[in-house]
Each structure stands twice: as C-alpha cells, then as structure tokens.
C-alpha cells in the first residue's frame, strides 16, 4: 500500500468531482428537456440516493474491508442520522401540515399535548447537524466500548450488531417512542428556507451528497495511508499479533467503529431530504446486510469498490424491481452467494482475478506440455496468496 496519493488516483478523484459536481447537475439544469443529454429531476434524485448509499457503503468498508469488523448494524447509524435531520425538517413544516398545528402531524394524530422536550432543540439547524454527528457517535461509542472491551469479535460482533439494530428497529416502530412509529417522519416542506421539492434544491442536495462522497473518500484514503491505517489492517489480519506487539487493539477498533458510524450517519442525513421520508424499516437488519452486499459486490478492502458496488447493485435493483418484481430478491440473493463464493474481491478485483486465472491455466498448460516432454516433471500449481489478502484462505477439506 503506497503512502501517498498516486497520480492516477488524483486524476480519478478530479474527474469524478467534475462529473458529480459539474456535469451531471448541469445536464439537469441547463440542457433543455427535449435533448437526449437531459437528466430528468427524477434521475438526478435517484443518483443522489445512490451517492448517499455509496457513502454508507464506504463506512461499511472502512469497518469490514480495512478492520475486519463485519457490522450488520451499520444502517442503524444511517437511520439515526436520517432521523436526527428528519426531526429538524419535520419542525420546519410549521403550520403547513395536514392539521395546521405547530406540532408535526403524527403528534397531533397521536394526541401529544406539546412538543416533547427532546424535540425542541431540533428547531435549530446547527443543533440538528451536531446531533447527526454526536448521537450515532455516542451510540457507537457505548456499544463499541462494551463489545470490544469483552473481546467480542468475528461473527459474535456481527450477530450482536444485528441484534442492536433489530432492537432499535423494534423501538422506533413503537408509536410512543415519539419518532412517528410505523410511518416515521415524512411530508417535509422546507430545508434552510428553500422548498425541498423544487428541482434546484434537489440539485443542490445532489451536489452536497457528491461533496460528502468525495470528502469521505479522501478522508478514508488518508486514514488508511497513515500509521493508524496500518495498525487497522494489522488488526484485521492478525489481531493477536497486534495485541502482543503492545497495541491496544480494542481502542483502535473502537475509534474506527465510531468514525464509520458518523460517516454512515452523515450519509443518512443527506439521504432523507432527497427521499422525503425516514421510517424504522431503514434500520431493519436486512438493510444493513444489503449494504454489506454492495461492498462485497464492489470489492472490499478497496475504497473504490464500495462506491462501484453501491451504484451497480442499486441501479440493478431499480431496474430489476420494475422488470422482474417477483424475482428481484432471488437475483439479489444469488448474486450475493455467487460473489461471496467465487469473487472474493468483487467487481473491482475481477480483472486481476481473471488475469491470474488465465495465468494459472497457461502455467498449467505449460506444465502439461512439459510433462509430455519429460514424464518425471510434475505441473506446478500456483496459489495466489498475498499478505494483504482480505480473506484468510480457508482450509476447505
């Protein structure tokens, strides 16, 4: 792993930035609707959703691909960020709701006499932004502290994070939990004084998500390049050796866990105004697993992988749920099983995998031809294992 940005990578970031921040919004805003190059409002909104998913996927990858912690509760933080920002948006509706009350509609409906105390400060935009960062960070800190302190690792960690998000999901489904229960928060009208549904606002949200994505990428890149990043990968590859070398592995893991929770939460906060709703099903255990699918499909342990995975899988989903509504889950499930079984490095690692397969078969063929020449010489079978391999090569007996 190199210690600075490569030239090609910088070029890639630059092109990506121009595409996301310049070209796509411009195609939406300035190209006339009749043109082939015009991007409809719907499409730009859809792309904005994909971008926030990509940020979420990166947070999963930071944990799973780089630290070896498979969290099945990452969507909890995504949803918490969404809720924190959604509360602010909810209060901005003001008297324009269905019941023309100062209270959000669901509170009128459920018979709340006044705004619950913990809702009050969310009238402030900056408080809400702070909550987007702090609330998930705090939850991650407490849960991570408890989990890593008692050395819960590997699959136990996965199961526990899943239980955490499941519990939270059940909690948010309750009407008396003051977050809108089943229906969640919806019907937003304004954001920072602008009409949330107008094309221009949506375009700005798209650009904001793009900026978040690029910043997250640069941040993760930087983090994994530092000495910290090295320890991070060392924890992934052999936690015990890290421990024996005198590092408090638990603290490193805790830090990464909290950071990735905050990244996921930011993604959620930008996701909600674009989709217009946040409800407890966003934190259902399935959603987190789906986010893991994106990373696995794209290629974990790389930073571009999760972005590719999130966009490809979601684009496929948008298409397949319309084309084959009955079969979509089967496609997703099969894709996942196949990727895990046969493509451990995902789409990003596919060229390399194909290349090594090609090489191996050619060595094998060479071996056979050599065998024909000299009966005593046996074909040499190459196995490709590099120290940075994400998966520990299992002994399949």
């Amino acid at each position, binding site marked *: 792993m190199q210690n600075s940005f490569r030239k090609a990578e910088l070029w890639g970031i630059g092109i990506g930035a121009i595409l996301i921040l310049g070209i796509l919004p411009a195609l939406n805003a300035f190209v006339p609707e009749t043109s082939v190059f015009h991007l409809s409002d719907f499409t730009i909104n859809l792309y904005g959703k994909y971008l926030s998913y990509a940020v979420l996927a990166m947070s999963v990858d930071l944990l799973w691909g780089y630290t070896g912690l*498979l969290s099945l509760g990452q969507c909890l933080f995504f949803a918490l960020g969404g809720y924190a920002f959604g509360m602010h948006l909810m209060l901005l509706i003001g008297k324009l709701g269905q019941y023309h009350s100062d209270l959000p509609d669901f509170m009128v409906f459920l018979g709340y006499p006044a705004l619950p105390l913990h809702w009050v400060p969310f009238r402030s935009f900056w408080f809400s932004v702070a909550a987007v960062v702090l609330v998930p960070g705090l939850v991650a800190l407490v*849960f991570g502290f*408890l*989990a890593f*302190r*008692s*050395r*819960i690792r*590997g*699959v*136990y960690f*996965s*199961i*526990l994070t*899943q*239980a*955490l998000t*499941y*519990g939270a999901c*059940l*909690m948010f*489904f*309750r009407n008396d939990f003051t977050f809108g229960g089943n229906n969640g928060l919806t019907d937003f009208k304004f954001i920072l004084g602008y009409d949330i549904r107008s094309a221009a606002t949506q375009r700005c949200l798209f650009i904001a998500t793009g900026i978040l994505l690029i910043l997250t990428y640069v941040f993760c890149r930087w983090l994994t390049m530092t000495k910290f990043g090295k320890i991070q990968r060392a924890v992934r590859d052999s936690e*015990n050796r890290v421990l024996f070398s005198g590092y408090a592995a638990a603290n490193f893991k805790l830090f990464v866990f909290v950071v990735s929770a905050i990244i996921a939460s930011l993604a959620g906060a930008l996701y909600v105004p674009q989709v217009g709703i946040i409800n407890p099903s966003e934190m259902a*255990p399935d959603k987190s*697993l789906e986010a*893991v*699918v994106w990373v*696995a499909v794209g290629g974990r342990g790389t930073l571009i992988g999760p972005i590719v995975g999130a966009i490809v899988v979601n684009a496929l989903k948008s298409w397949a749920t319309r084309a084959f509504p*009955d*079969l*979509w*889950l*089967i496609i*997703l*499930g*099969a*894709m*996942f*099983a196949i990727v*895990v*079984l046969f493509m*451990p490095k995902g789409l990003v690692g596919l060229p390399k995998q194909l290349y090594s397969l090609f090489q191996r078969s050619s060595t094998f063929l060479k071996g056979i031809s050599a065998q024909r020449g000299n009966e005593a010489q046996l074909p040499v079978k190459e196995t490709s294992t590099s120290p940075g391999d994400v*998966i*520990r090569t*299992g*002994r*399949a*007996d």
Partner: protein
Amino acid sequence: MPRLKFFCLAAMLAPLLLHAETSPDSSIRESIARAVTSSAADQDSILDQIVVSSGISKTEHDLLTSWSNGEIYLYTDAGGQVIPIILEQSDTTDKTRAFRVDTGQLLKDSNGAAIMIDPTDATSSDVNAILRKKIQRTLDLLSLSDSNPEVRRGMAFKLGSSQKAENLPLLETRLKLETDPGVKKTLYEAEALIQLADTAHPERQVAAADSLAKLNCIGALDALRSLSESKSASAETKLAATKATQAIQSYLAVVNFFGTIFHGVSLGSILLVSALGLAITFGLMGVINMAHGEMIAVGAYTTYVVENVFRDGLPLSPLGIRIVLPGMHLTGWPFQTYFLFAIPLSFLVAALAGLALERLVIRFLYRRVLESLLATWGVSLIMQQLFRLVFGANNVQVNSPSWLLGNFTISDVVLGYNRIFVIVFAVLIVVGTWLLLTKTPLGLFIRAVIQDRDMAACMGVPTQRVNMLTFAFGSGLAGLAGAFLSQIGNVGPSLGQSYIIDSFMTVVVGGVGSIAGTVVSALGIGCSDQVLQQVLGSPVLGKIMVLTAIILFLQWKPGGFFPTRSRTLDS
C-alpha cells in the same frame, strides 16, 4: 339471521322429536303442551313442576327454548281442539310438516296423512316478556342440575354474578345435592357473591368478602372493587372488600406468573429445538447459517402441505405454473393424525434442504465464518422469495388437530395441550440429540471433528460425510421447530426472520457447541422474554430489554454460559 337460527333449531329438533316417540318422559312434553295453552297462573305451577321433576331430556330442554323464542305454534283441528305444534322447517314460505309438542309425533289428519302448515299464517303461541323470563329462569334452574359439571359451573357462576338475592335459595338447594368439588367451589363463590350485594346486612357482606378471599375467586374481583369504592357501603364493609380485593389480586398475580412461566417455557422449547440445530452446525463446522430461519419455515410449510393433502389437496401456482396437490379428503380421526405424519416429514424435508445447501454452498466456506454468514443470507433471501412465489405472500393458516386444541386448568392456570406437547417433544429431542452425540458412532465422529478437525481426518474420520450429515441433522431440527411453530403461531414467508435473531442469541448466550448451554439459555431467554412482556406490558419493550440484557451478559461471560475450553487464542 333470526330465520336462519330458526331453521337450524328446527332442523336440530326434528330428529330428536322423532326419536322421542318412545321416550318414557312424555309427561314433561305433555306438561309443556298443557302449559302453552294454559293461563298464566297455571303456567307458573307447571313450570315449577318441571323444575322439580328429575331428569329432563335435551329434547324437552330445547322445547322450552323454542317456546321462549316463540317457535311453538297453535293448530286448531277439525274438532276445535287447540294443539301446540312445532314446524319441521320454518325458514321457507312453503308449506311444511309439523310435530305435536305433547307427543312428538307428526301432526296428522284423521286419514293419517301429514298436515301441511303454511308458516306465514300459522298462529304463534302467545309469549310475553314475563313468561319469557319465567321460562328462561326455568331453563337456568334446569342447567344447574345438568349432568355436565361444566354446565352446572357455568350456570352457578352466572347466577352468582347476577347478584340477585332471589337466586340464593336455589344455590343452597343445589349445594346440598352437589358432589363435584369444582362445582361446589363455584356454588360457594356464587353464594358469597350474592351475599356481597346484600346491603341490608353489612355483617353478611363482610363475611362474604372474607369467604371470597378464601376461595380466591377471580371472578369476584370487579364486584369487590366496586364495593370497596362505593359510597353507600359502611366502613367495615369497605375495609373487608379492600382486603379481599388485595388478597385476590395477589393470588391473581401468582396465577399470571405461573401462566407466563408456562408460556415462556413453551416458547423456550421451540427456541431450543431451533437453536440446538444452529448450535451444532456452528459448533461443528464453524459456519453461520443465516438460512436456518428459512429451514424453520420449510418445516412449517411442510406441515401446512401435509394438512392440506390430508384434507382436500392444495392448489399452488408458482410463477404462473399451476400445480394441484391431490387431497385424500379425510375427515374425523384419520385427518386428526396428520400432525403425526407432518412431524417426521418436516424433519426430512428440512434435512434434505439442508443437505442441498451444504453441498451447493457451505462446503466451500468451512472455517470462513463471515463469508458463510453472507452467502447463506443470500440463500435465505432466495428461499423467502420462493416461499412467496409458491405459497403466496400472506400468512397461511394451519389448523391444529383437535387433540392439541384443548387445555386443562390447575388452580386457575390454563395449560394448553399444544404447548404441553411442544415442551414434551422438545425434551425428547434434546435427549435424542444427546444420545446421538454421545452414544452413536456418528456422534463420536462429530465430537472428534468439533475438537480437532485435522486430527480427526488423520485418524480416518470421513469429515466430509460427517459435515454433510450434521448439517442435515441441524436443519432437520429447525424443520421440527417449524412444525411446532405452525401449531402455535402464523406461518408466513418471513417466519424464519422472526426467529433467526433469537436463535443466534440463544447460541451465543449458551456457548457455542454446548447442548447444556443451549438448553439453559433457550429456556432463560424464552422465560425472561415472556415475563418481561408481562411486567412491561408490551411485547416489544420486553424484547428490547432481553436484547440489552444479552449484550450486558456477554460483558460478564463473553463465551456464554458454557464456553468451550481451549488454549487457542482464536476460538
């Protein structure tokens, strides 16, 4: 609606009436017939006689009901004599045959041919509100001496809750004759309940409250509570009522507690059967099977299919292809045995599904726990969607066989047969699994592979075969859990999802690969889930508390109740 009821009753009565031709108790029929045409005073005395006369049959009981419902008609024959009759069919406008109330025989003219009566212009016997009340009371009194103790109990309770002093002598008379201890208790309760309303005698009220408390009469709780809050009652009475309320409430709390524990144990048993399979596959092969929940659903759907095949067959239409499973059209007891066939079948089907899963996916993923978790999740998505395509997205109804439907009561704690069955079967399964693991050659191999796979392979243990069989066995256990679940809850495509997290929790808390640990944690989680639900008054809060408790528990014992001891760092 009344017409329909009418018809049902008449249809029910018809054979009974025919049968009654030779019955010796024609005197009661005659009395009823006489009463219908008599004056009000005579009616009273006749009804009293009926109460006193022993051994009233069901036919006569029904006759009284019909009378009270105004279903007895009056027919005037050629000689001017008025004959009370009952119509064979009263919901049609067509003419219908009729039976005489006094003899139960068909109404015939002098030639012996049945007389057809037009229901629309038949004269109904005159039944006013007072008479109806009187008949109803006679019926009540009659059921107090019914041969079925449950009916007697029900009536005693009804008379008691009416809190009318006029019923007191009846209860006392019955109490002298009563032999059944259950009914006796209810009679005492009913007496006390009536005395409780006796505002003229406060001392009786106090005594009644005391005896109700002694009898632990849950049904009297409302009456006692309202008495303790009433303004007209004296201070002593109020005090006694409050005391009695408290006593009964604490008794009720105990009853509820045991009821909850029973529910918890039965829930825990299902959890146990499902988690046992998971514990074995996880402990043995180091793979996490996220599709384990779908194996539960496989078992439940197998039970559903078996039930329908025993009944009338089952039309299925996956992906537009119509398949009709033929039915055996069984009824009665042969149908009721379907569950006995469904149990082994659901084990087999789930085991086969597990075998296929092991061969197709899992065998590439041994010792790669995280990957196995993800790949099997993909499989679980596929299976869920397949269930949806084959059986529809909605829950399906599995009808329990009648022998699992009843319940019995031990001091007010209701124990359902289905739950008892589940508990007993879970015990059998645990014992069976334990025997398999400790007393059979396969068990020896399994334990060897759990301890040290490589060494076991070196010693000639066919690890591949052992993996295959164990995985199939674990999935089969999930299938059994599904068969039981179908008797207690709904069966739907996402059935597995609601149990998978609980099953995993059970395994983690119990300690991976330990049967004893799984038993302890399954019962623990099942009971605490139910108890917390009861205490917090909400199933969701209970569940959240249990999840929190588990996370905290793992702080204290990261390896679960019975961790596998090993010197390796990465266990």
